[in-house]
């Protein structure tokens, strides 16, 4: 897989590139700001761009804006945004609006296997939403809310669905069989009034969109 990395902290950028290369990916470009990122993406048309939210010159949300821009100009390049803290302003919208987008806190990188899986998933057209963001989307259910009718296990499964995981991934995480997970998923979709859909990506989008509407923010 051909990847570009945009990260202004050199040490982290090189570490990240090393991890990805160790895993057999091809890091075609490493840059430190949003402007160069857009340039190298236009040049290499990579499968995936890993982007830090805060980059020079203002350290505000250059990375996020560049991500939005890339989605528009290069829809075939998937984007994985890394952030130091939860700033979900654009993240939830981007995850809910199309495939091939991910948003993770930086320290998720330390769970290397999970991280590499998310990389694979996003570049394959799937999505990845940080558990921290999902937690915000899920809590707290108000009275009369459809979410309140879910069992604790179903809420767990819904959270993992929102993170972008496949049924297999959910099963591994919760030490369940895929069959059981499938049962939970169809129960959840039924309770929330969402269409039963075999396609994982579309299902994630539906769930995230639902949660975004339900959540007050």
């Amino acid at each position, binding site marked *: 897989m051909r990847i570009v990395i945009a990260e202004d*902290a050199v*040490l*982290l950028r090189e*570490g*990240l590139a*090393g*991890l990805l290369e*160790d895993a057999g990916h091809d890091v075609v470009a490493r840059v430190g700001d949003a402007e160069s990122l857009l340039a190298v993406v236009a040049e290499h048309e990579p499968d995936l761009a890993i982007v830090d939210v*805060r980059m020079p010159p203002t*350290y505000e949300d250059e990375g996020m804006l560049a991500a939005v821009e890339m989605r528009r100009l290069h829809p075939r390049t998937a984007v994985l945004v890394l952030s*130091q*803290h*939860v*700033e*979900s*302003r654009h993240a939830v919208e981007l995850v809910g609006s199309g495939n091939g987008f991910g948003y993770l806190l*930086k*320290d998720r*990188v*330390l769970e*290397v296997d999970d991280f590499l899986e998310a990389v694979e998933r996003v570049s394959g057209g799937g999505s990845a939403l940080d558990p921290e963001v999902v*937690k*915000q989307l899920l*809590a*707290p259910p108000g009275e009369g809310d459809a979410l309140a009718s879910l069992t604790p296990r179903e809420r767990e499964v819904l959270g993992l669905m929102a993170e972008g995981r496949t049924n297999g991934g959910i099963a591994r995480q919760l030490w369940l069989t895929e069959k059981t997970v499938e049962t939970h998923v169809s129960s959840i979709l039924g309770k929330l009034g969402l269409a039963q859909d075999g396609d994982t990506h579309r299902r994630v989008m539906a769930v995230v969109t639902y949660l975004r509407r339900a959540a*007050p*923010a």
Partner: protein
Amino acid sequence: MSVMQGLRLAAVGIAAGTCVLLVLGILQVFGLIDSINADEIPLWMVPFIVVALLAPTAVGLAIAIRQPRNVIAWILLVGAFAIVALTGPDLIFTDGWALQVGRATWPLLYAWPIAVTYVFPNGRFLSRRWRYIGAAGALSFVGFMAMAMFDPEPFYGEDASVPNPMAGNAVGEWLNDSGVGLVWVVLWVGILGSLVAGALAIRMRLRRSSGVERLQTLWLAWAGALIPLGLLLCGLSSFVLGDSLVDWVLFPFLLLMEAAVAAAVGLAVSRHGLYTIERLVNRTAVYAALTVLLIALYAGSALSLGVVIGGGSAWVTALATLAVAVAFRPLRSRIQDLVDRRYARARYEGVRRVRGFEDEVRDGRRAPEEIGPVLREALGDPGADVHFWLPSAGEFCDVSGAVVTAQADDRARTEVERDGVSVAALLHDPALLERQDLLRGVLDASRLTLEMARLRVELRLQLAEVEASRTRIVEAGYEERRRLERDLHDGAQQRLVSLGVQIRRLQRTLPKDAAILGPTLDKIVDEVGAAIADLRQIAAGVRPARLDDGLAAALRDLARSSPIPVDVSVPAERVPTSVEAAAYFVACEALTNAVKYASASKVAVRAVRENGTLFVSIADDGLGGAVVRRGRGLAGLEDRVAAHGGTLTVVSPRGGGTRVEVAIPCES
């Protein structure tokens, strides 16, 4: 040689002529040169005559040198010269002729003062019609003197021995016999009429003119009014004290009045602003009226007592004097008041206006700063402005506290001081400078109020400055928190992540036989992860990054992290970030208190924006009884809210829950 220089030379010539003739005349009076006229004049009169002639000459010359085209100067110069030439030394005329000319030309003494009244101070008649009046006056004087010249009557008194050179002349006899002599009456009326017209002209000018012209006219009016006034006083005193004084007093007095008119003209033209003529007029009026009334009182009481007790008694004189002494003080103040009301009306009303305002300030009905419009009214100057002195800034400011820079218009400026320290400055119509009496009177009366207003304006400015600096400090604090949060995320946290990634890479590249290190490295990375989470927590406490998304988003995050249910109802619209931060920290503190101390089971956070103010309330159902104590959580927040010009109130009845309310202005 220019026209101006020619005129100046002519003026010097006339003045020199006057002086030479005057010296010759004096020599005759002292008998050093033979003269028949001089015998009539007693020696003690000489100084009076000299003053009466030199005054108009000197003033006329002074004006002519500075303003050669000034008509007034020429009236004075020529008037004095004509008098001295015709009535003075008999150089030209032999004895009889000298007496005849002297007899005919006495009206000249009055001619020039009357001429001055017509055209003073600008050298022009009041209107076209006044030219005719002037011409008629001149005709009357000339005609009168001409007819007097032809008078064939013999001289009388000491001069009876001198034959009249006109005796037996045909014209004179004919005039006397034919009844054309009745023209005398007409000419007399003409002379008297021109005197009245002169008084009228002054009066009209006083009404029509303003500023400098009015003051100049006032000077002349004052000197001119002394003449009839003096005559009246002389008449009255001679009535009371006997005839003997008339010769001794009246004539010198008239001569001095002549000098006074000339002096007044000189002052009016050159130094009108130097003395307060209005005050002089005022005092003259008061003391003249007082003297007249006291003399009348003395005469009245002497007369009536004389009838009762018998004339010539020492008792009469003593009692009449006593009556005058007793009446003096009350009469004086009463007249002063009357004159003030009549002649210094503006000052009287102006001071009264200011005093009235002072009373209103004392009663708390008006603020001292409102003195501006009061001064405008009192001074009758709608364009006047008051500026207050700011000692700290070393500048003047207007009533709103805005510093006034250099003055751009041509208004005059009068400063008000108190103990030698500037209090305020008044910008006003320059015409008021000519009315120092009014200006000073009103400003003196308002000094205390001005000082109060100045102090209040200064205090308000300083308070505003302190408030602004407090807001700046608090905002700088927010900025500092923001920077700190940024540093934590992008500095320490970033390094830890990078450290973790390196350990992970190390772990993954270890040879198989070193796999035993795996669990240890996992533990290390877990620790790094925990450290990162801690840092994230700390950064969120310093300033939640969610505040970037607005107050609503930040408060919802806060609610989610709370162990008890928090109902949040906050509009999504944004207000200035510093206001959002202040509101957020208040909500944060209140929420912490609700959980920690109040044992609340639920909390409601409400925010609403109305009329440019953000209202936030945080209400719990806990124990209540909370008090805001100095230096504790909410008290610090109270200061922070106040720095934004807002208020924080805590309602916490024991057992009735706690409600914290914040109102912060947030202009959009």
